[in-house]
């Protein structure tokens, strides 16, 4: 199961956060901070996985992708495949790219609602439901 999805910029400002188990606002902040703390200390060209047990409970890890000024982070447990999660980030980013025509941080900042619509089509209650960006775009367009 996917436990959380976060998009934050390289200064640690959250741009999109979604926690699939309820977390209080304070806890969310704490989690975002600790994720950023881990990510910003990692060099480029190293693997994209981080064991996350200490922060997000047992058996959790995160996968991230650093693109331009943004980190895309998925937190998941042992019922997901690491490389598939990495690919899922790719699906998410590609979908954004198609939706916003060369997506950049500003698009994400100003399209808060649309971001949620897109993510909700891909990940539903922590489970991956759609992996084709064409299908996602189709659904998001009809939702409006």
């Amino acid at each position, binding site marked *: 199961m996917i436990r959380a999805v976060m998009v934050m910029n390289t200064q640690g400002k959250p741009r999109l956060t979604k926690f699939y188990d*309820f977390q209080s606002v304070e806890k969310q902040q704490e989690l975002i901070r600790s994720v950023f703390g881990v990510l910003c200390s990692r060099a480029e060209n*190293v693997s994209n996985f981080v064991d996350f047990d200490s922060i997000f409970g047992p058996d959790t890890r995160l996968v991230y992708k650093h693109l331009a000024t943004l980190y895309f982070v998925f937190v998941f447990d042992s019922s997901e495949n*690491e490389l598939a999660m990495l*690919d899922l980030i*790719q699906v998410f980013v590609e979908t954004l790219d198609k939706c916003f025509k060369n997506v950049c941080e500003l698009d994400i900042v100003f399209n808060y609602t649309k971001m949620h619509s897109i993510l909700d089509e891909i990940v539903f209650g922590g489970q*991956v439901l759609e992996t084709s960006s064409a299908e996602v775009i189709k659904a998001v367009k009809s939702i409006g």
Partner: protein
Amino acid sequence: MTNITALHPKRNERMTSPSLMDTLFQRTLEDLIKGIRLQLMGESSFISKAIEEIRREIKSTDLSTKSIALHKLTYLNSIHAQDMSWAAFHAVEVLSSHCFAHKKVGYLAISQSFSESTPVLLLITNQLRKDLSSTNEFEVGLALECLSRIATVDLARDLTPEVFTLLGTSKVFVRKKAVAVVLRVFGKYPDAVRVCFKRLVENLETSDQRIVSAVVGVFCELALNAPRSYLPLAPEFYRILVDSKNNWILIKVLKIFAKLAALEPRLAKRVVEPVCEHMRRTGAKSLMFECIRTVVSSLSEYEPALKLAVMKICEFLVDDDPNLKYLGLHALSIAAPKHLWAVLENKEVVIKSLSDVDPNVKLESLRLVMAMVSESNVVEISRVLVNYALKSDPEFCNKILGSILSTCCSNLYEVINDFDWYVSLLEEMSRIPHCQKGEEIESQLIDIGMRVKDVRPELVRVSRDLLIDPALLGNPFLHRILSAAAWVSGEYVEFSRNPIELMEALLQPRTSLLPPSIMATYIQASFKVIIYCLHVYLFQKENLISSSYPDNLALRVSDLFSERECAGGSDLASGDPSVTCEKYEGFNPRVLGQSFEDLSTLNVGDVTVTHGQTSTTPVEMNSFTHESIVNLLNLLEMALGPLSGSHDVELQERTKNVLGFIDLIKQEMCDILIHIEGSLEREDLRSSKVVALMHDAFLKELGPVSTSAQERVPIPDGLELKENLADLDEICGDAQLPSNSFSLGNPHYGETVGVCFSNFQINKYSDTSHDSTYLIAEHRQRHDLYYLPSEKGDTVSNDYPPANDPKIQDNLKDDTEDLAKLTEQSLVPGKKSNLAKPRPVVVKLDEGDGTRITVTKPEPKDDMLSGAVRDILLGNEGVTISSQSNQSDKPSIKRKGKEKLNMNLPSESKENFGDAEKPDYGNPSSRKIKYHSHGKQRRHRSPSKKNAEAREENGRKEKQKNSHHHVSSSHRVFGLQPHL
């Protein structure tokens, strides 16, 4: 838009209630975001202004205004961590709007901010029900999404019928979401299984891959918690494993089989070939990795499969992508415990990876290096790793040290043959600048000291080296290690080459940098050292004069006590009771550890023998002169003087004890000098008696105690630990003592004195027991307050709090015999290995030291869930292992049978649907029985029918194979190629 934004601040000041102006000039979310980004007035003040505004707007009766306000609030909640729990009711209001856009805002707000404890949660049930039955599929989608996030037991129960209906809808968009929401519904309300499970399974058969993917995902989650319940579905999963071309689905199915195969060996045999086939053919790394993981974790006994998996792992290891390298190492470490050869084959890559730039890779390779450790190479590997640790960053350095420590101590230092080497390795590790493993090293130093007798001289040498180095005192991470070193050198002081030097090390000025608890250990250690020195000194002298020491010991003990009683009132008033406590404290662990009669006598024998042997060397070297002893006493007195005023209770008490003791001894030391050549009087004997007694007390060897030893001591009948303590203040009010100072130890000292001491005496000096009980009674009379009420008719201290550890009370009674038996049982001699250098004896406890496995039961919810699933799949009466395995053993046959049956009896299955559509909570068994009847009929099939089916199955298999060839050429995840 900009004009409106500019207008806004003014309007804020003028208006206080929502009005038409608000609606007209309301800031949208975009305006809000722009405003925050402009940061004209600072982010936080801008946001609090915005919140104020939202609070006003959200009260508007206009749903559009309300929903925009809620939308802004949701944004601020999620991105700027603003509280929105106060708006819960407004969110419910927005939800009830007919406009889809409003609904969407409402659902987003609710799924983001509602928790189980949100009070208005109950209000949305009807709205959700309405939206779930809406004709607009996107509304249904929103409601399902919301349900998947916030469903509670009530919501799940009330909406199960709607979810059930949606599981059969023709709209894929809705059906896949309905499938996914089932996971949450089952989790919250296991009875929903009776309604929805069958339809969920049916969705596995649909042709739409998105729905199959969702169903497999749900089963993957369910099977992770209670895999056994899903064994009967193995045929369905097997079909997907063989037929599916969707990598996402295959990954999930593999995960399910990894769980199921572990439960059912015949199933493992069945799936191993398809898994290998995928491994050979797929180009997608994600699927490849999942296959590898499945093989190494669950199918590793199939050698060809394992060999293939290891081959693929090698490809990962040499890949440039750090992710693949990391995952390859990770897969190796899964295989390592059972198949070390896989690691050894890749030894070079693994060791090279220790210096990789990637922390993940380094960590995994460290794990693998540790897996390779054996008796023969532990020295070499540790050497290499310590060198790595010296070069590494602090974090990885400590990871290395941590894994060396945990590997070496596992199974009672199984891999260690040469403990002298290991102890010096511990010292070396302590001296590594980044070392933060003080706690682990501390416990190992003490543990080895207690368990391995042969290593004690080396241990004392190492401890001395650590203690004597003033530089180490400045590093707080090393304090725990120093504490252990102090304890070791006090406890095994007889192996010390130079106790005076040791004493100086223990009392050096920089010890003031230590925290009080560790200071206390230092002081206790110095006390042991001084006792040892005095004993050696006096004993030498005494040997010259009187040789009757062992014979009249018993007499001397009683003497001493009567003496002490007399002295109690006079010059030793302050020192005396604490000395007593000190001594008993010394006794206490010993009694716990080895107060059993047989072994204790045996040990005493041993100890004296060892002592005899060693005393030939050190004592000769240490032949203390009178002057050196007096100097030592002076040094001790001088160093401890300032500490007697310490605010730390423990520290103060120990200091006072030692100082009291010095008071007692010092005077007589002068006397000794006076009478050095003359006849020794009784006065002289007094001090030597005290020393002899203390020495004997410290001489008793400490042993490891099983963690469960105390639990096995039955609680005595009369012991009341839950007494009301309301009167406590009244009783203690006059005394004005800080309550923890006396609960620290005194209350149980009083009682343990009786046991320990009488025990001690029963062992050795049985004729003095009367005296001691008399003393106890005396002590009790004086310090009644500190005693626990263990005797009948004791009314005064009825309300005294239980001592810190109630367990200690357990052995207070006359159960010492039981305790003795228990501890005796728990000590078994260590094994010896037949190597060139014989491995020293490591004392063990019979029931796995500290590795008491606490069986964690699965959560009751899961239990109920898996129980319900089992009921559905097998029927209540058929929950036997044999029936499960039968079904899973012949998966295709079963499936075939079922399909056939469904075809034959369309009316029956139709009826089932109709039945289930109106869920009947009162009598779910009717459906269940019908479903189960498939299985029953199958079991009673005639042999000829079986044959026919077998043929059919073969044909089908052939087909599957053929189709597989077509399919497998294009394995990709989601049609993307990052990992192709």
